[in-house]
């Protein structure tokens, strides 16, 4: 474990924060304002990318700032797990920034300064979550993420948006508050909150108390991970502008939730302890129920974004399932799915937004014949659908394959069956859209044509990324290496 002192993780957090300030200062000059947004995303990505070679070589940059509570410092460190999250979020922010510009200008949204500034703060908080070295720092950035995303959810300022904002806050704040209790209890048991691969809660106290601690974490992280029955906020939050749904509610906020589970199971409890208290049962079953129910609910949604929201709920539980199965392969699959699902879902949301921006259609039932009118958009959508179903050569197949192998390796073959069934259900709610788009005749509309380039190019890029990662899981960013390094550090090199 080679930890060395470096300011890189801190810079990754500071760059978007600074950008938020600059964005507010440039409020009267839209071009400059948007330049800061895109520029900051590129700069932040560059910083995160610069950390990659070190982490791959087993050297982890860390920086300890001042104490935020006696004995607990505000500490940031980049390890393999954090880098998976940070790389995917920061890379996707670049395309989302570009996409946002296209979307906001086409749709003519107001309050754009608040939008771009909040977005930047969200990404700063996300980097903070990804790079947190201890549980208190994690909770800090986790809560800041909630509050930074609130203005984005209520962006439209309609009564519906404000009501959605209330529901959003009610759920997310509750989760965060329960997390505070969980952190306090953990600190009382262990005297430390520093994340350690393999966990730092050695067998302390009697089993009931650890179960209580697990339940607190379950609620705390379960809300943002949209684990049923705590998922209610996500479909409602779809009222936000589509770029918000795309990056935040498919990549940043929800992945912060599942990342919380990654940290708790792998770096707080540790797999052995987690297994011995039986918590893995609870988590796996809840994840399984979520996967099934969400897919069924998705089939009934006519609103495209809501359908995608329920799909997200299900796919997040793939990751949670992988984490709960406590086998290295399942972990690799789950961690990879953080990236893979992000790329696929963001593509689909980008498509939904492009369709809305061009045609003002929000519902699946209005998409007849869209394949003819927006071939590139629907082409990307189809590719992403196949990816979510889990078909090769797309990246969705890779993570599903590893998850299935992990399930077999953990003697929990029933979950493999669940994954296959879920693939079918995914097809059931996604492929009809494709069918409508290509094989149904649209009776009324004129030719709309594709959305502006600023929206179409990003969605093509993310679809291409999904395909690329399906063909070369370790390509470009070494995600596969990072995932297996994480699993190795947690499971201590045990194979299978």
């Amino acid at each position, binding site marked *: 474990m080679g930890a060395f002192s470096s300011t890189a993780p801190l810079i990754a957090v500071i760059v978007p924060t600074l950008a938020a300030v600059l964005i507010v200062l440039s409020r009267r000059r839209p071009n400059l304002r948007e330049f800061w947004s895109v520029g900051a995303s590129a700069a932040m990505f560059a910083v995160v990318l610069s950390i990659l070679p070190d982490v791959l070589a087993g050297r982890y940059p860390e920086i300890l700032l*001042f*104490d*935020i*509570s*006696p004995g*607990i410092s505000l500490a940031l460190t980049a390890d393999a797990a954090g880098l998976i999250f940070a790389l995917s979020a920061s890379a996707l922010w670049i395309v989302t920034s570009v996409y946002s510009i296209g979307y906001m200008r086409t749709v003519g949204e107001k309050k754009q300064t608040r939008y771009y500034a909040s977005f930047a703060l969200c990404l700063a908080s996300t980097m903070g979550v990804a790079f947190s070295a201890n549980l*208190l720092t994690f*909770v*800090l950035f986790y*809560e*800041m993420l*909630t*509050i930074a995303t609130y203005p984005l959810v*209520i962006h439209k*300022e309609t009564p519906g*948006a*404000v009501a959605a*904002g*209330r529901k959003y*806050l*009610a759920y997310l*704040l*509750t989760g965060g*508050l*329960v997390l*505070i*209790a969980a952190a*306090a*209890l953990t*600190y*009382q048991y262990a005297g430390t909150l520093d994340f350690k691969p393999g966990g730092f809660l050695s067998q302390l106290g009697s089993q009931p108390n650890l179960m209580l601690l697990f339940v607190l974490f379950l609620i705390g992280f379960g809300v943002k991970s949209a684990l049923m029955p705590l998922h209610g906020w996500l479909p409602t939050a779809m009222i936000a502008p589509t770029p918000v749904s795309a990056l935040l509610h498919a990549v940043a906020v929800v992945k912060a939730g599942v990342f919380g589970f990654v940290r708790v199971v792998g770096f707080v409890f540790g797999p052995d302890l987690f297994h011995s208290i039986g918590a893995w049962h609870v988590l796996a079953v809840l994840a399984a129920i979520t996967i099934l129910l969400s897919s069924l609910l998705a089939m009934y949604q006519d609103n495209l974004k809501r359908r995608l929201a329920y799909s997200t709920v299900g796919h997040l539980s793939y990751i949670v399932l992988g984490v709960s199965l406590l086998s290295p392969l399942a972990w690799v699959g789950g961690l990879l799915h953080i990236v893979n699902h992000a790329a696929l879902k963001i593509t689909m949301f980008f498509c939904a937004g492009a369709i809305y921006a061009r045609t003002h259609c929000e519902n699946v039932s209005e998409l007849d014949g869209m394949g003819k009118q927006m071939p590139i958009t629907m082409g990307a959508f189809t590719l992403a659908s196949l990816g979510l179903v889990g078909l090769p050569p797309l990246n969705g197949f890779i993570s599903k394959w590893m998850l299935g192998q992990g399930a077999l390796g953990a003697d929990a073959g029933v979950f493999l069956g669940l994954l296959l069934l879920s693939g079918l259900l995914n097809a059931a709610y996604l492929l009809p859209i494709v069918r409508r788009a290509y094989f149904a005749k649209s009776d009324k509309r004129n030719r709309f044509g594709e959305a502006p380039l600023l929206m179409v190019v990003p969605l093509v890029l993310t679809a291409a990324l999904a395909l690329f990662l399906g063909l070369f899981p370790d390509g470009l960013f070494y995600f596969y290496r990072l995932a297996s390094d994480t699993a190795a550090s947690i499971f201590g090199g045990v194979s299978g």
Partner: protein
Amino acid sequence: MNQLPVIIPVSLLMFAFLTFLLGIWRRSLAYPVATAGVTVSLVASVLGLMRVLQSGPQHYFLGGWAPPLGIEYVLDNLSAFMAVLILTVAFISMAYSRQTFLKEVPEKIVPLYSLLLLLLAGLAGIVVTGDLFNVYVFLEIASLAAYAVLCIGNDKAPVAVIRYVIIGTVGACFYLLGVGFLYFATGSLNMADVAGLLPGLYGSRLVVAAAVFIVAGMALKMALFPFHIWLPDVYTYSPSGVITFVAPLMTKVGAYVLIRMLVSVFSPNYLNESFPVTVALGWLGAAGIIAGSIMAIAQKDLRRMLAYSSVAQIGYVALGIGLANPLGLVGAMLHILNHAFMKGGLFQVSGSIRYSTGLWQIPHLAGLGRRMPWTMGAFTVAAISMVGIPPAAGFFSKWYLVQGAVYADNWVFVGVVLLSSLLNAVYFFRILEKVYTAPEAEHGGASLAKDPPMGMLVPMLIMAVGIIVLGIINAAIVSNILQPVADQIF
């Protein structure tokens, strides 16, 4: 410079008279002289804190007479902390209130400033004195000055204050009774002396009665549920400039006295074994948190909402004291500091809205976010802190309180503290929604709104920045100043 402990209250006393005398001669001198007085005392308190952190507690005997007959002034971690807190908030409020006073009650400036300095002298005196009866003296100075300044204003203020006078005086008398009993039992009025003599009187009914009277008296003074009934009316009807002094400080000093009794005179175990004082404090605090928050949600008047919110916040402090463990006590003390800044800032915003638009009803605040961006920005920071979102200070006092409750295995308290954050979110975010997303009023005061002048804006912003800074540096404050206090007794 070993007179630092006594300079803090005495300078304020002297400047109170000076303000009055010079003010009668030349009205425009009242404000500068009063500010000078606060500045002198502030500098003394900061120097005092630094001295204490370097070399330990500072003692000063008034007139050179030793206890038990003489009066001792002590600056230790806790009293220096409180003194700096009081004077800092007072200093910022002095700057803020000038324009509201000029606008609302210009002809009463001179008595107003003199009385305010007397009030501050009383508050400062309470926190630096080491003599039980001296606490009563300064308590009455502060209370009488407070009754007077709170009356200045509209017609409803005197009625509200009458209730405060009655309840406050009862509280002070209870305290005096308690001190009297202690004197009979121990023969001394000096806190350190009494602390040394008490263990020998273990089980004495007189001492237990003294403890109960003192706690009851202070509960009335600090508006602990259900003794809070005087507070909402008083906070609602007093002038904006005055409430920015009173709201952050008055009730906190009551809490300070409780803590001081716990730390330096009685010990928690001593109290609990004879009469479950800390348990009662904790549960009343918890009840106050919930009751205050729920009542706040029901209010339409912004000031009244903030008043009930203050009742809830005092509940936090009482809960922290009632936990009777180091973390709870640290949380309580930190919350005294954090709440002073949060509530001070919030009342300053409320006053600014009043100054700029004449409005105080929440439904009328629609759309002010656009017209008064800086004011509402300060409000947002304070609101976020009240809800308990990091990095604002409010998060950290809740963190310590939750830790304390977890340590005491009291999951009801954990639930109460966390639930109250949600309740706070309800009534604060309701205002944020109104201010930022509701369509603006076409006519009436709101359409003329703009940010208040610099003299009021800068103090508000200082409070807002202070809230964030206090959050970020909270560990430094806790480790260096507050933790040693808790470690002393546990």
